[in-house]
Structure formats: C-alpha cells, structure tokens
C-alpha cells in the first residue's frame, strides 16, 4: 500500500496530476491512498517551491509541472 500526496492549491495541473496517478495505479493494479494537500502551510512544510508537488510515502519525489507517465510508473513500482 502506497501513500501518495499531491501538493497544490487547486490549479489545473494539480488536478490533472491526481487523475494521472489514479489512472496509472488502476491500470497497474497497485493499491494506493491518494490524497490532495491544499493547505498552504502543509504544502510549505514539505519544502517544495513549485506545485504540483508529489510525495510518495513521506518523501518528496517531484515538484513543479506535470510528471511524466514514466516517472509515475517508477514511483508505483518501487
């Protein structure tokens, strides 16, 4: 079970990132808990400077811009 958080305050690419991760997990049959973090103080506590940020099991793996499908697959398979 992976815990994935998307950090971002409701911008377009944040929503798209959520969808991409959900779709990839379903396709690969990986169980995840997907959560969106919109609270600014919480986002900043992860130390990211650009959104969407992605946190997998407590570790920041991405910040700023849409992730690629290849990257998502990699995070899911680790």
């Amino acid at each position: 079970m992976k815990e994935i958080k998307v950090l971002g305050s409701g911008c377009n690419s944040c929503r798209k990132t959520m969808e991409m991760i959900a779709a990839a997990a379903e396709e690969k049959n990986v169980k995840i808990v997907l959560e969106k973090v919109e609270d600014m103080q919480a986002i900043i506590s992860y130390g990211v400077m650009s959104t969407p940020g992605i946190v997998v099991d407590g570790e920041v793996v991405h910040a700023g811009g849409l992730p690629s499908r290849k990257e998502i697959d990699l995070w899911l398979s680790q």
Partner: protein
Amino acid sequence: MSHAVQSASLSALKMVPDRYPRLFLLIAALLWGVIYANLAGGAAALTALLPVDQQSHLAGSLQFLIYEAPKVLMLLTAVVMVMGMINSWFTPERTRSLLAGKREGVGNIMAALLGIVTPFCSCSAVPLFIGFVQAGVPLGITFSFLVAAPMVNEVALTLLFALVGWKVALLYLGLGLSIAIVAGWVIGRLKMEAYLEDWVRDMAKVDPAVKTVSINMADRLHAGFNAVKEIVGRVWLYVVIGVAIGAGIHGYVPQDYMAGLMGKDAAWWSVPAAILIGVPMYSNAAGIIPVVEALLAKGAALGTVLAFMMSVIALSFPEMVILRKVLKMRLIAVFVGVVAGGILTVGLIFNLLL
C-alpha cells in the same frame, strides 16, 4: 517482413533524441529553418489552389492567415523549446540560492532578470514566495522576482514580436523589467517585513544551498519537449484567433474606431482607466495579445495598450487572494499600489513621447 522493418526503423528513430540529443537538435533546427524560409511561398501556392477569386480581399486574407498562423506557431514552438531547455537549468531552488543574501539594487536587477528564465506559474506564487523568504532573500528582491516572472516571459515577448513588431517587444521587455526592479526596490525601502503574516515570519530559516542534480542533454531535450507540449498546447488556439483577427477584422472595422476612446488624443484618464479595467481580468500573455493587436490596429495609443496589457498580466485578483495567505492586507495594498503606479507612469510617459 516489411512491417517489422518499418517498426524497427521507427523505434530506432525514436531513440535519436535520447542517444544523440545534439544531433537531433541540429537536424531539428535545420528542418525548422528550411520550412520557415519557405512558408511565404508555400502559403501563396496553397492559396492559388483555393477556389476563390485570386484578386479578392478574401484571397488576400486567406493567404495572410495561411502564412501568418504557422509562422507565429513555429516561432513560438522554437522559443518555448529553447526556453524549456534553459529553464531546466534555472530551477526555483537554484534561483533562490543565487538571490539569497544579495544586496538591494543589484539584487533587484538580478531578481527581475531571473524572473524571465525561471519557470513560473501563478498558482505556485505562494510556495515560491515562502521559499525565497525562508532562505533569506530580502523582501524587496523577492517582489522584484514576483512582478517580473509572470509579466516578462518568452510567450509574451515572442507573440509581441511576431504579431506587433520587434520594437514593441523590446519596449515591453525593458519597461516590464524596469517596473519589476523599481517596484521591488521601493517595497524593500519601505521595510514592510512586519506585514508578512505572523506564521511566515516565525518560520524556521532554511539553507539556500542546492542539491546538485546532474541533468544531461537528453533530459534537457525532454524538458524542452514538455514545455512545448504544455505551453504551445495551451496557447495555440489563442494565437490562431489572434492571427484571424489580424487577417479579418483589420479590413472591416474603421481604422480610428478606438482612437477617440484610447487614442493619443483621448483624455489623460484613459491610462488609469485601462489599468482599472485590466486588474479584474485574469488572463495570460497569450490570451491578451490578440486583443492588444486589435486595439493597436484600431488606433489605440501604445502607452494605453501597454498599460492595459501589463495590468491584466501582472495584477490579478486570484493571485492577490492567494497572496493574502502570506501577506497582511497592508503589504498587498502597497504591492498593488507600487506596481500600478509603475504601469501608470509607463503608460503616461509613452503617450506623451510618441
């Protein structure tokens, strides 16, 4: 058999950007140049094939559209691609470490310049702002960056260059940077640190040093591809609409339609009015430039139009609502006042001089 060969050669072709990024760039640049150089001839030939009266106004408009739309899109693609690759060097983290502890003045100039090359999206304004302040970048210098980043960017400059002309593009670059530098400097002088929200002031400081992540040429190339996909994918429709306005309406709306309202001889208050109209409008550079082009063509004065454009892009309600989470009202008011004042000055001076 031939199918297997075909798919094998296709996948070999797909490997080129990864294995030989420099070779790929060279070939792409050559191809780009050849196509770009032949656009005018191609458009003329294509128009000649169309079943319309070749002498008519319609044929002229069509040829303009067939030539101009691909031209602008090609220019935009090339610029966004190159900037995407350059952006992969200037990450927000690196920019922050360049600006941390800089003195006012030099720092403001650097911040405004870095604002051009650092990727920025207004939805990231707050985390970026905090990241800068946390690492010890002075407040005024942070604001110089925050003003320049959305206003002076490659999409705005390329579109201005392609649709309105290089002189206006250069003016916009110079004036946008000046406003960012001066506004940030003024805010720094006013010593407004007390008007950050309390939790922002009390945050732990962080070390601005960057972890160096090595990126190779192939990665940069992919960063460029991504930028093209994201940015050109988002704005191409605006560009086509903008060109269509240029191709169509120019001939039909009276040339001086806007002159009385926004022209040189309009009342002095047309500049502040243009700024006020611009603030609640929320648009990016790509959305506003077709409007700019149409306004200019219809006799609106350059200063008024530039002021309008800058206020739409640099001052927006949604961004202020987001910034309210980290700034107290008073600092937001000063920020808006100083930037609007800068834009106003630019607009008025322009209308006087030109």
